[in-house]
């Protein structure tokens, strides 16, 4: 398989896991300083939240960038009110995956159903939402597909509109499904013994976890 580059990177990352509020929270610290945080539903193993954080050139930590899940409200505060922010009447864009597909929801879209069109741009590897009344336009990529280096396929894409919400669905290809299943297996291995407690921090093993038994080092 030519794709497991991403899985290798996950294995190399320093991982910390935590069970809390019925969610499995996993924090990855990559060797290049990037941080990723994921939250899974414990029962269904659905991905609820995935966000990223990087350090910029000056050493300051940027705020979390949400990839999957509801974006956390910006800190606001003094700075926020002084400058500029998007009005709450604007469409809200978020990604909310299911087990078998990537899914995006755009809420607050009051325009009639037939103005929307969604297409795949192969050259830029992204999906484009257009409106014929020129009120909304969004270009977004599927980071998962980029990580596994898979081509985008317009037949996997469909969309629906109801209740001021546009739902765009892209079927996960088989490679992604396989990889996610493997990841879930490895995450679950870490749970032995620890899963009963609420809020237990577990350092996940680094390197190929398949061959060795999971090592648990509670932090407190």
């Amino acid at each position, binding site marked *: 398989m030519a794709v497991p580059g991403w899985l290798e990177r996950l294995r190399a990352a320093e991982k910390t896991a935590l069970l809390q509020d019925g969610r499995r929270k996993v924090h990855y610290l990559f060797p290049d300083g990037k941080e990723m945080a994921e939250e899974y539903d414990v029962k269904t193993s659905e991905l609820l939240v995935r966000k990223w954080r990087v350090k910029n050139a000056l*050493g300051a930590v940027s705020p979390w960038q949400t990839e999957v899940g509801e974006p956390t409200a910006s800190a606001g505060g003094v700075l926020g009110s002084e400058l*500029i922010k*998007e009005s709450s009447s604007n469409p809200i864009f978020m990604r909310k995956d299911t087990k078998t597909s990537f899914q995006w929801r755009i809420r607050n879209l009051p325009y009639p159903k037939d103005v929307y069109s969604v297409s795949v741009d192969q050259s830029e590897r992204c999906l484009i939402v257009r409106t014929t009344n020129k009120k909304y336009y969004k270009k977004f990529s599927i980071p998962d597909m980029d990580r596994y280096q898979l081509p985008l396929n317009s037949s996997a894409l469909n969309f629906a509109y109801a209740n001021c919400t546009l739902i765009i669905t892209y079927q996960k290809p088989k490679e992604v499904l396989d990889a996610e299943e493997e990841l879930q297996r490895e995450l679950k291995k870490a749970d032995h013994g620890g899963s009963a407690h609420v809020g237990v921090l577990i350092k996940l093993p680094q390197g190929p976890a398949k061959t060795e038994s999971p090592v648990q080092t509670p932090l407190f």
Partner: protein
Amino acid sequence: MATTAATTKVPEVRDVTRIERIGEWRRGAPGRPATSLFLAQVSQGMVGQLAARRAAGVVLGIREERWRAQADRGPAGTAKATPWVWGMAQALGPCPTLAGRILSGDEQDGSPDPGLPQVHRGSDKVRVEETEIIEGEVVEIQIDRPATGTGSKVGKLTLKTTEMETIYDLGTKMIESLTKEKVQAGDVITIDKATGKISKLGPLPLWVPLKLAHPSRTKPFPGPDGELQKRKEVVHTVSLHEIDVINSRTQGFLALFSGDTGEIKSEVREQINAKVAEWREEGKAEIIPGVLFIDEVHMLDIESFSFLNRALESDMAPVLIMATNRGITRIRGTSYQSPHGIPIDLLDRLLIVSTTPYSEKDTKQILRIRCEEEDVEMSEDAYTVLTRIGLETSLRYAIQLITAASLVCRKRKGTEVQVDDIKRVYSLFLDESRSTQYMKEYQDAFLFNELSETGRRHPRAPALGPRGGGG
């Protein structure tokens, strides 16, 4: 709440530039290329002082070599301080006003507070970083003011591209800068989201009859397309001090904007220096040598001088320019006398440029430029009289009279300031030496006079006192 729609916001905006006071030493419009800034007799609003300006030209030339410090001395009113800053700022290239930083010695209260190191670090610039910008065409600006006149303004801005439209909520600062930039419907603007900096790219042809303005240009300037928000790699200029702040505390950027930076440890500064040096090696960042200008330098105390002494030896030292009008005087914080009130060991590290009093021709030239700047018409005779006044009293006084005289002239419905107008304001407003003379004559009439030979004090002010001063 009074709501003003986009179309009616304009009149209030227009007044902003008119209120601007013309700085006392500003003698010409900036903006021309500064190639021979310091060599022509009259250039960039600088008149006369040929020798001092030649020296300044040399300063600019060797600034690249990170040469260190210079002092500027001369009698009062000989264009030491402010014209220098102006001239240097205009010649310094890419970021003129950023590079020059003014720390007035007067503001130092004698304590070795964090101010000086901070300003010192703030004057060197490093260019790195990226930022997120919004680019779009303005559809509508709506600003709501509270009906009571107090409280913060809120507003909405609608931007569009060829593909979409978005509404933004505006904060107070953003409203201010939109007003200052005179942004109107139809303008294409970019907004830096982090700093709130607005730049106007110009109106679209839809709103300006382009053929009339530029007959040769037939291709219309295309509007922005695609999404409104763009992440752009932009070269960003930050000062060392700003990097210090970001790295010294966890709240980072917030501290920078609120101004509460607290103490920055010297270890942090050393780390930053090492990091920046590393970036420079890798070609990631570029260091722009800063210029630190300290006016009234004799007001710094011995501790500040000691700091400067040491700071000048560091690798990151900016070019330091100091100005003073003192002769041999006491160094603040000690009982020792020294030239210019600067310790000898620091003086030793400086190059000294001397300025001289203006000649009659220069004075006239300055007044001419000044009148032009203030839009005052003046007759030739009035110029001569004013020049005379400028030579005998002070140039500053003569400059102050221009505005006053033009007001008198306007009152009698004249178009050109005449000798009589000058005479009138000359009798209305005293200059420093006449005022001193007056006070010497009538000292007995003032409260708490200390010049009285007999030492006799007047406990109560006699009738003449309060009517004294202005006439």
